């Protein structure tokens, strides 16, 4: 019913003042100023007696690192703006030459990430993901255990070719629709919990397998090349990560079948409806065929670099950007799509590269690493590897996993030779755990997307994340001690010095 109205005013815009944001903003700034203007800190001394001086620039790098970590954790400003702050502080406080500091923002790894985001975009735009999803549903049938498996396998498989966040966003409406068919109730079901938490978990597990699944891989390889002078190829990364990622996917399926056993064994009618949905999509469009061809060729060329000498000299970022350009040349994407690129995310990766390189080039990473060494001095190397993995796993739950990699990897790679640990094992074990933040929603975008289903609480997510994280650590241990050595990875090296 309408109200009788004689005099309607305009409501005052009352936005409550965000004290928390202000507190963390100044905490970050305070940490930066305190560390930057502190008197010189003592040298770090390694087990061989070598001194590592913390120069003013290196102390500046630590100061920037503390500000960035604070702002990233508490999202004081959009994460991309924190990245801009990283570049700005380096330039204005003479921590690194501005040309160098800002060049990292367009590092090949960042452009590689840009290219992979575009692939996700084009899959969504052309409807390829829909086609794959409906096909999968019509194949897996009506048994809930198989629907679990089908959804998990499809989520993980899609993360091989597009960013796991885009995959989660694609899967979300599909899973919501499946759940609607499963239960008419608005209240959560065991099947719903398993479906959505599982989707978030396997999106992470799948995303570690190729460089297209998440930005952290490209960022980590960028650091590795800079610090260790070794170029790890797309194929090498996939080779080592494939067994671990898929092992995790199937273990997680077992985990959800055990703890979230669906209340009902089948969803009647799902298969027929999925087939109808697939038929309604019609025949493959030219754009779909072109997109699939371009992506397959691109991935093939990048992977074949390892085996075909003629392709060896081609840069993987250059190859990937060929696909981006091809999408626009063929009018599959337009200027409007280009405007939809999430710059907040791109800038986050750019800033992560910049702070990582900054810590390394100023010597701050070495100084921190040598001070950390004391903790591991008498530990077996495996304790260091798993300790490092555990640290990254915990941190990736609090901050974007690419930031966790940027913060920890440069330091860990410096410590490794002192303990006789190979660089590769540090790199890959860090990449395994950083892809799977199972405890907190803020750890990864798929977690937050899954939470929109309202099938589980943050408390439940954390609770089930504990055993899942223990499983992840066990799988990491298994990879370090069994899988990777069998594949020829050098786990232990002669101790430095």
């Amino acid at each position: 019913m309408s109200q009788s109205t004689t005099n309607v005013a305009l409501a005052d815009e009352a936005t409550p003042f965000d004290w928390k944001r202000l507190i963390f903003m100044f905490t970050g700034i305070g940490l930066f100023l305190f560390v930057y203007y502190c008197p010189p800190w003592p040298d770090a001394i390694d087990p061989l007696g070598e001194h590592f001086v913390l120069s003013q620039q290196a102390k500046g790098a630590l100061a920037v690192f503390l500000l960035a970590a604070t702002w990233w954790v508490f999202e004081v400003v959009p994460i991309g703006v924190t990245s801009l702050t990283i570049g700005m502080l380096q330039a204005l406080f003479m921590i690194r030459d501005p040309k160098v500091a800002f060049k990292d923002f367009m590092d090949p790894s960042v452009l590689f990430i840009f290219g992979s985001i575009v692939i996700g975009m084009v899959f969504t735009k052309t409807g390829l993901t829909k086609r794959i999803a409906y096909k999968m549903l019509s194949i897996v049938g009506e048994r809930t255990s198989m629907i679990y498996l089908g959804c998990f396998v499809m989520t993980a498989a899609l993360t091989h070719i597009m960013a796991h966040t885009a995959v989660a966003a694609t899967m979300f409406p599909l899973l919501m629709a499946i759940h609607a068919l499963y239960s008419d109730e608005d209240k959560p079901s065991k099947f719903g919990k398993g479906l959505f938490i599982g989707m978030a978990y396997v999106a992470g597990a799948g995303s570690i397998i190729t460089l297209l699944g998440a930005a952290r891989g490209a960022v980590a390889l960028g650091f590795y090349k800079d610090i260790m002078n070794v170029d790890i190829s797309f194929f090498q990364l996939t080779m080592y990560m494939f067994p671990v990622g898929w092992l995790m996917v199937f273990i997680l399926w077992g985990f959800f079948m055990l703890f979230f056993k669906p209340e009902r064994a089948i969803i009647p009618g799902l298969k027929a409806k999925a087939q109808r949905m697939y038929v309604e999509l019609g025949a493959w469009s030219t754009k779909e065929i072109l997109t699939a061809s371009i992506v397959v060729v691109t991935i093939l060329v990048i992977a074949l670099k390892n085996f075909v000498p003629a392709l060896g000299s081609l840069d993987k970022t250059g190859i990937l950007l060929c696909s981006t350009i091809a999408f626009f040349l063929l009018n599959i994407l337009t200027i409007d799509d280009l405007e939809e690129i999430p710059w907040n995310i791109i800038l986050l990766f750019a800033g992560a590269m910049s702070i990582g390189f900054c810590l390394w080039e100023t010597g701050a990473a070495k100084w921190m690493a040598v001070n950390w060494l004391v903790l591991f001095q008498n530990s077996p190397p495996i304790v260091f590897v798993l300790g490092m993995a555990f640290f990254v796993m915990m941190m990736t739950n609090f901050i974007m996993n690419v930031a966790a990699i940027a913060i920890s990897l440069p330091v860990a790679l410096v410590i490794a030779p002192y303990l006789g640990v190979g660089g590769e094992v540090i790199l890959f074990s860090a990449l395994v755990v950083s892809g799977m933040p199972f405890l907190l929603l803020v750890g990864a975008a798929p977690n937050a997307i899954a939470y929109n289903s309202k099938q589980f609480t943050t408390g439940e997510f954390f609770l089930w994340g504990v055993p899942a994280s223990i499983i992840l650590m066990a799988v990491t241990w298994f990879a370090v001690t069994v899988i990777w050595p069998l594949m020829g990875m050098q786990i232990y090296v002669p101790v430095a010095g």
Partner: protein
Amino acid sequence: MAAENPIVRDFIIPIDRYPHLRETQTLSDAVQVLMSHTCGENEYLRYAGILVLNEKNQLVGGLNLQDILRALDKRFALPKGHEGKAGEYPNLAILWEDSFFHKCSEKKDIAISDFMVPTKKIVKGDDPLLKALSIMLHGNEVVLPVKEEGSIIGVIRLEEIFLALCGVCKL
């Protein structure tokens, strides 16, 4: 001459004639108020929007048919804030149509404040009509509240602007 150009005030629907509700009222009230304004022998809806007021009689937001229908089921909304492009999945309705029709009546008691859209754009009574049209075309709006001396005096709709311009431009 500028003085002869149409201004917003001459084409408004006064506030007392345009549907409006308190923010504490329900989705069902919103539907009832729209259905109470019909025209023609087929009883077509006369209005496709509602203004929302708070207990102090202040304008806080608005609703259109899409907002009301979207409130019936969360599956109409896709998660936002992910990296990449949001997809469209109309075929998925095949999977959830049964549960939608089974449950949509349960939503009739949810408060308008849960799904109204806060008022962002307003025009003044003496603003040129073309300014209102520009705001609508750029912002994909079809209704704008009209303010005069601190009070909301009514709304200007795209339909009235359309008819006015057809007359002025002799289309």
